[in-house]
């Protein structure tokens, strides 16, 4: 029977679409706010009502990457003419770029923090997903004494709110010298993500029929070879989905990064808000930092979106 759409159903559909659009806009509004502020001149950043139409400029990004100081006097026309185009943007904002004695531009703390974030998030994701995959494979394929208890124990490490262990962790890290080091944060984030990774990967591993490996074993391969040649390619979807979740957790983590690091290994999340109060608060620079900080997760998630969508339902449904 052909579906008959009545006029009430049609108007209800339209209403639903409008509803979805409104919800989407509510969710996208903060992202738009940050993205637009990142391209605004400073004087338009905090206007009431907010400025929606403006001439976008990249001065916030120049300021974000350089060390600056307030200008006491306006630059001379010669100084202004001699400056490269990006330095003029800083002059226009009433500031100047700090240079070393040899005239080299001094970088702000942001690029380093951003790099630290990448190093810590990528390494801890690789470790958590790697170890999680092996552990999940073991639990999925072999009879292990007390398997359920062990799995519950692994899960139980997530039951404690992480922040309650912050002080003991800080003291322990100080003793072993892991404070303010990349490895300190990497170990911490790997430990956070591992239980999640094991559980998620176990679901995926259980879905991969045992016969695939058995066929490979009979075909003349060792179990290790069968794992790498057969199981890993089959688990790609699960690995991608798990990696996205682990990466997001490590990338966004704030509390431990704030407590455990201060300079050398500090990641972007505790750095960005610390800039609010340094000198005068230039919201455009903070927005620029936040905007750049959003990009890696957005790109990573976008690249793996197909796996991610499949990954959400895969493992959840018994075939």
């Amino acid at each position, binding site marked *: 029977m052909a579906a008959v759409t009545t006029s009430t159903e049609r108007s209800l559909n339209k209403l639903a679409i409008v509803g979805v659009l409104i919800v989407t806009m509510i969710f996208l509004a903060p992202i738009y706010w940050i993205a637009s502020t990142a391209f605004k001149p400073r004087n338009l950043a905090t206007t009431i009502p907010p400025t929606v139409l403006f001439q976008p400029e990249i001065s916030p990004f120049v300021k974000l990457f350089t060390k600056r100081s307030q200008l006491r006097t306006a630059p001379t026309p010669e100084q202004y003419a001699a400056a490269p185009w990006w330095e003029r943007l800083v002059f226009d904002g009433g500031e100047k770029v700090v240079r070393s004695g040899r005239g080299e531009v001094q970088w702000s703390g942001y690029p380093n923090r951003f790099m630290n974030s990448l190093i810590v998030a990528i390494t801890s994701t690789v470790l958590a997903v790697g170890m999680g995959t092996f552990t999940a494979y073991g639990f999925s394929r072999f009879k292990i004494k007390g398997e359920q208890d062990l799995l519950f124990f692994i899960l139980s490490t997530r039951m404690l709110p992480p922040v309650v262990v912050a002080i003991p962790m800080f003291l322990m890290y100080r003793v072993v010298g892991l404070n303010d080091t990349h490895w300190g944060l990497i170990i911490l984030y790997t430990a956070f993500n591992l239980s999640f990774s094991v559980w998620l990967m176990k679901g995926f591993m259980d879905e991969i*029929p045992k*016969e*695939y490996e*058995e*066929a*490979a*074993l*009979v*075909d*003349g*391969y*060792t179990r290790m*070879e069968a794992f790498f040649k*057969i199981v890993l*390619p*089959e688990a790609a979807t699960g690995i991608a989905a798990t990696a996205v979740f682990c990466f997001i957790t490590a990338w966004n983590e704030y509390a431990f990064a704030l407590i455990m690091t201060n300079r050398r290994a500090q990641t972007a999340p505790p750095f960005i808000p610390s800039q609010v109060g340094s000198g005068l608060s230039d919201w455009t620079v903070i927005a620029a930092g936040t905007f750049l900080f959003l990009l890696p997760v957005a790109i990573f998630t976008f690249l793996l979106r197909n796996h991610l969508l499949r990954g959400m339902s895969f493992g959840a449904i018994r075939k």
Partner: protein
Amino acid sequence: MTQIELRGVQKYFGAVQVIKDLNLKIDDNEFIVLLGQSGCGKTTTLRAIAGLETIDGGDVLIDGKPVQHLKAADRDIAMVFQSFSLYPHMSVYENIAFPLRAMRKSKAEIDGEVRSVAKVLQITELLGKKPSALSGGDMQRVAIGRALVRRPKAMLMDEPIGALDAKLREEMRAEIKRLHIKQGSTTIYVTHDQIEAMSLADRIVIMHEGVLQQVGSPSEVYTHPANLFVAQFVGSPVMNVANAAVTMNGSGARVTVDGAAEGFLFPAELVGQLDAANVGQDRLALGIRPEAVMVSREAADGYLPVEAHIIEPLGSYDIVDLKVGAQMLRARTRSGFVGKPGVQVFAKLDPAQAHFFDTTSGNSLGVRL
């Protein structure tokens, strides 16, 4: 030349013994079918030979050498799984080449062997495809190709066509037989389908609850079942089994089925053979296949009057349930031979095809008339 031998093989899953003291010798080039209900231990036996399952006692010998401590990879045996188990991320070509890569063969050698196997199985045009794009029959051909390509010592097949539909199963059965005749490798085939077993096997091995029941050629197993289990498992429709009493009556013996007023006429030697078997009357069961129950529409010498109950028309023949005493005997007749349920017809049993069993042990008494 590959011989496989199982000597006193034992296997436990926890407290449950799934293989009980299994002894079996398989000759070179032989096609052996392990037949039994699900859970009878046939697949476990196959997996134990393949090296996918450890055994708790006994020996598995390939060409006289114990292999139970060897890994699956080192036994040089190929296996075809019920689920086909083609690697989904590899093309058909890669799937077939996969075992050769484990042998570290050169690219040219691999290519030659993959193509020659594909030719034999008529799947050359599928080589570039992914398994997900294949039909069930083609998947199974590829799975068989992957097993054959290495020229293994033996082929193990675990219900390889169980997942296919009836028509395709028949086709693949013929193809497997053709391949075995052509390639001639020692093959062990597991199935629960007795028709598959009968049509493929050189010898059938029937298992029940982990215990080997009978080993023999399809006709041996069919005509001389070793016990009640084999008698009722092999053959379709199922053999009639009824408690019976044997009495001497003049020149012949009479076999009276439980609750019947009159007995069927049998040759007098029956009594002597039963006496030799030394089984009490209360432990005696008669087994007779539907085709050995002869039906007549008119009264005739040696025929007893019986009432026809249900008639199942199966096209080329009918199965008619005849009420004999308290029992139903199923008879196979020409189609349309018995007009309608409820009519009286006359029945006789073929003594040459009758079996007698000890109901306590279930064993055949070996009566041959």
